[in-house]
């Protein structure tokens, strides 16, 4: 379950920055996760809560903003939204599609008191 590692990475990085700012509590964290990043949000939320226990981020809110997946055809060079990694070009129907966004795994920001 890599969601545990992801949660630990998020909490570690945020707490480090929060402590640099002399924070007492972290109250919320904003993440940007691509639709095709391979992360199960429910599983991440579950892991997050257990990782936050006994830290200054305990009971902090995790907001996951999903980033839509966009593909670009290798031949036609047009871009279009895609639903999966098995995307084909709506124009030429070929499967040679480059995923230009939708694989993001990013900490946007956090709030602290």
């Amino acid at each position, binding site marked *: 379950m890599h969601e545990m590692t992801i949660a630990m990475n998020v909490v570690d990085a945020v707490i480090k920055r929060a402590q640099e*700012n002399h924070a007492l509590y972290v109250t919320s964290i904003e993440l940007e996760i691509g639709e095709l990043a391979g992360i199960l949000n429910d599983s991440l939320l579950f892991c997050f809560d257990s990782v936050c226990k006994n830290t200054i981020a305990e009971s902090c809110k995790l907001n996951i903003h999903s980033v839509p997946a966009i593909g670009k055809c290798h031949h036609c060079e047009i871009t279009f939204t895609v639903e999966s990694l*098995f995307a084909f070009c709506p124009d030429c129907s070929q*499967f040679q599609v480059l995923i230009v966004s939708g694989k993001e795994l990013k900490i946007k920001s956090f709030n602290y008191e």
Partner: protein
Amino acid sequence: MCDTCGCNQPDGAVTITKIGEKNHDHSHGIGDKTHTHQSPASHHVHTVTMEEDILLKNNLTAERNRGYLEAKNILTLNLVSSPGSGKTSILERTLKDLKSEMEFYVIEGDQQTSRDAERIDTTGVPVVQVNTGTGCHLDSTMIRTAIGKLNPNDHSVLLIENVGNLVCPALFDLGETLKVVIISTTEGDDKPLKYPTMFSAADICIINKTDLLPYVEFDMGLCQKNALKVNHHLEFFQISATNGNGLEKWYDWIRSQVPVG
């Protein structure tokens, strides 16, 4: 509790051991997180903008490994598959057949045991075992420590057997030259449809256990077609680690990739 040094390791902690050596070390978890809640005088909310990749730490160490390995002209392959597809068998066979031609090193990833590393050890090739405990993948820091123990020579080949899992290892760059995904003919030709993230991350796809093709329902053409839909750069090798079919082509490919010294 770690039974080698007696330090207070939680269950499932990472250990990294060079086979044939007694000493060990391990990385400790994410640090001391205990604190006490003081009642804060004021409740001002502040926002810190980070815009930081969640896997930044892993990616930075992976690039550091990659720089080291590239500078030493070491071909590094990260082998990923479900449990039982034949990673260790392919390694054993490849080492036996090619070790007189080139220098090899192996890093074996496994959650608990060192069985695979012991199998590799019988070939005489230097091998480090990384036990990930409850962790379901290798990460770049484990590889960095393992490389330190192997101290590989220039112009060699480093083979990494990742933990048997087609989901998690896809996200963790180790600093390898190429990722090799292995599937076997007993797993079904729809495997690429079930694990698209891994197939899209891989560079090479080995289809193993071709000796069983007469006995299983596996459409080789369909499997490759499915895999190419997620990754049109994927290169295929059809082999049997048991009877040796197709291995010569795989070996020729390795020979072609080894930076000449």
